[in-house]
């Protein structure tokens, strides 16, 4: 039987980058995402024997999202959606965007922060983590219909915020 410590370490090394980037997209704050992931991995270690038999990724995601909400409940919204790197400013406060301009990662991150928390979470889980609608619903504790409606609303809002990418954001709603 493999040593649980070794399998855990292997799992963390293999998955931390993807989980971290996903959390950072959702929180908008890489440092907060790192804290969330670290806490989640500590909790995972405490339950590794049982959780490793199922889906460690699902466990970690759920702990992070729960802790994220928990932190908000304790300290207010400002810790849920943190500062975006590079001193980004809200998209809505800027001049009209040139539709021909190239979309940057910073543009996308700014736009994501303009979405509601649930819209942003659903889009990241759906299109970055490639979770199914049912998996997202289970992770967030909401109905499949809510996942669908949040994705629809999130994509619609992104189209407004990222006219450069509007074409890419058309038509995907039907597949959510």
């Amino acid at each position, binding site marked *: 039987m493999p040593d649980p410590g070794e399998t855990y370490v292997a799992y963390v090394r293999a998955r931390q980058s993807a989980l971290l980037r996903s959390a*950072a997209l959702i929180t908008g704050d890489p440092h907060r995402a790192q804290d969330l992931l670290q806490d989640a991995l500590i909790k995972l*270690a*405490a339950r590794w024997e049982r*959780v490793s038999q199922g889906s460690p990724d699902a*466990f970690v995601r759920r702990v992070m999202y729960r802790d994220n909400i928990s932190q908000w409940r304790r300290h207010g919204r400002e810790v849920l959606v943190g500062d975006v790197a590079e001193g980004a400013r809200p998209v809505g406060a800027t001049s009209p965007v040139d539709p021909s301009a190239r979309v940057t*990662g910073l543009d996308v991150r700014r736009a994501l922060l303009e979405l509601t928390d649930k819209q942003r979470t659903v889009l990241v889980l759906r299109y970055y983590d490639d979770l199914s609608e049912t998996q997202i619903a289970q992770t967030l504790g909401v109905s499949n219909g809510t996942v669908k409606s949040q994705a629809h609303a999130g994509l619609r809002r992104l189209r407004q915020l990222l006219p450069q990418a509007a074409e890419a*954001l058309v038509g*995907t709603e039907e597949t959510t």
Partner: protein
Amino acid sequence: MSDEEIRDLLDLAAEDMEFGRPIEAEDTWAAGRRSRTTSRAWGTGFLAAAAAAVVGIVWTQGLGGSGEVPLPPAAESGPVPTDNGPAGTDPTGPDDPLASASGPLEETDGVSDFTHSPTEGEAEEPTGTIGIPDEVGTPTVLVMSEGEWAPSGELTPLTAEEAVDRRWMLVETDGDTPRVDSPESDYGLTFDDSGVHVRSCGVDVTVTGAVQDGTFSTTGRVETVEDPDPGVDCPVPVTPDEWAQILTSKPRLSTDGEILLIAGTAGDASPEPAGLALLPDGVDDPRGGPTTVVTAEDLSAGLTEVPGEVASQEVGVSDSRDPQPDHATTLTMEGGFVTVDVGCAEPLRGPAWFSHVGPESFNWQLTAALPDEPGCEGAAAEDAELWQQMLAHGTFLHHFGDYVVVDSWADPALNGSGS
């Protein structure tokens, strides 16, 4: 094609983010395993005690003194500006962060067992706080007073400056009038530059850490003096282990200037989101609608619980709890006390604070200390414990049209048919 392009956009957003040093898997493994050990040492036989600690903790035995000071009612808050999204509701609306990514964290793939599973043979000595999850434990609130002052109103986060050079005593809240013993010379809870110290008969606990923005965060070990009062037979309503766990749960510290509320967690339970919906008395044809803030006037007018099924389906409370589908619990807040009637012999009643707790206008929270012995059994007792926990944690209240949405956290074991 479109899906792929969206993926490309998100990949683009993620690829140039800068992070700190990679997380060392060996470190998180060690921390997680230590937390199992620590939890086990602190958790044994703790759940029942934790329930007792929620409210009505009597600090009187062993303290001596006769100058008991009754605590007048706390003032209630005023009206609150409107909000733009329902709390704890599923509907697509809004931007309310409470409605975001919340809801019950249901069992999935067998990975949602958040309770620790101790291993035989592990050490029993608490070794510190690293790895103890923030939200493990039964929501617990302790009411403290310096004794000379009465509650004066709305709570605000305790600051480091407010914390030092003061000494708070535990308040007994079970009776009709909360009472606090006059302070002994070296008894009570005190903060200093290094952390917090609790001393009472049979209790001598020091937790290193700091108060910041209304939260106490540990930075080191918990030091407990074994049998600090040898030969003295004094009941200990809050044991050293209980104090240690509450104070290391990153408790929220709030004060109205005179009273200190310590809202933390204790025990091994893993609280999860808990919600329900209420209606003002006299509303016969309730409708959902715009979200507005709940005011003290709403609370004093009285609210009645709607069935969990209605809360889920018509109000959109995603984490609805209703241990008693056939009973409509009522809630009223008057004169600084909240009364919750879950159908026990006597309604639950305790001191309560309705306070603005965050930077946003809609962050209003009702916190109360309800008695731990509801005087009933079965589903009603479960309902009572649910309310104890929700109000101990501090519950957010929002209007959703006619409805009032209650959004909080509680032990998932308190899980009625409405969930």
